[in-house]
């Protein structure tokens, strides 16, 4: 498993750049990923999406469906794509430290 080092922290990531374990997540991870995800500056709204994803994952053990994410955050899908250009799965979930989305994606 490849390792990346950023601001003194070491992360194990898979070939798509997802963190190996949700427990290893820390705010530096978000900072590290944001560039490869095409995000210049992290705003309050980015963090709101990340926190909603993390809270839902901690409570339910799965990532929320897109409709739940939009309902809870109040951001329409179009706006979530503006925040995270790769989308809620590849972008937001990766930054939130959730497992990589599976299924016929």
């Amino acid at each position: 498993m490849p390792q990346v080092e950023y601001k003194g922290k070491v992360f194990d990531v898979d070939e798509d750049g997802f963190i190996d374990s949700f427990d290893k997540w820390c705010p530096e991870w978000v900072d590290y990923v944001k560039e490869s995800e095409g995000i210049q500056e992290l705003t309050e709204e980015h963090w709101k999406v990340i926190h909603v994803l993390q809270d839902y994952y901690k409570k339910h053990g799965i990532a929320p469906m897109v409709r739940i994410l939009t309902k809870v955050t109040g951001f329409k899908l179009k706006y979530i794509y503006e925040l995270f250009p790769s989308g809620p799965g590849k972008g937001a979930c990766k930054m939130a430290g959730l497992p990589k989305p599976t299924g016929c994606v």
Partner: protein
Amino acid sequence: MPFDPNDIMKDRITDIGPPKYDNFFPPYIKENYGKWKYHEILEPGVLVHVAETGAEVYTVRTGAPRLMSVDYIREVCEIADKHCGGYVRWTTRNNIEFMVDDKSKLQPLIDDLRSRGNWFPMGGTGASVTNIVHTQGWVHCHTPAIDASGIVKSVMDELFDYFGSHKLPAQVRISLACCLNMCGAVHCSDIAILGVHRKPPFVEHDRVQNVCEIPLVIAACPTAAIKPKKVGDRKSVEINQNRCMFCGNCYTMCPALPIADGDGDGIALWVGGKVSNSRTAPKFSKLAVPYIPNEPPRWPTVVQTIKKIVEVYASDARRYERIGEWIERIGWERFFEKTGLEFRHEHIDDYRLAMTTWRTTTQFKF
């Protein structure tokens, strides 16, 4: 405007869709669009469509391996440039169709195609075995139980004679899917080749918690064989082996439950499906052979079994009768008798609505 990795949204073009289909119409198709009067099959692989205006369009259909290199596509383009004014089309079964608007151009095109060895075999029209709709197999997918391209090549080699001829009672559609996700058309084909597993997945307990969303894994199981389980201080799952029917859905959702197995995996053959509404309603294909081992690179048992089914059908069915219609007329017991296939307990449906597939009548042939 080269792609700038530092500003990925700069000059980004999106939501433009595919190019409009009629940009690529040959002029004689565009002129006669919606005005076709009738068509004829002149010989296997060659069609003519006649328009109300009197215009004629000749189509030559050739087989293709679906998985193809750019070199091959360039050769297709070269033929299209030479004979068809640069126009060519692909069919829904991944055959290639070259069209010309004049009879004098037809024979040179056919001669050219034939001169290229077996790269462009003509056929696939009428009551034939046309191209096999198939999937990725070991070329690209991570959930297959069998290969796709290899088996398709072996089967088409054996049935090649039926591709370029019209000697069957009706068209026979063969398709292949390398796992029971059934990408493609296996559930509705005259003969379907399907990859199956025979062993439950292996649970990598140390990875499940990290790479899987456990509730999704549990919900993915059609027989409810999976339940959550703690292994040490890690969350994982437990699979009830007596309830598992090896569908592999849980591996699709969770990379820590690999199921592929060299000895266990193999092929099931299904028969009797169709999608058209002609004569009888569309049908699902039904199980004919529950398991044949993987035998790369030529899969001789599968090939011979399919050939046997096609030959028995060809000699026994009435004209226009698809395989499913033929079987329903003679009865499944006769189908197994005539083809010599073994009827086993795996053939008897035992999933939810199974009761509707059992025989609730005394009508039966000994």
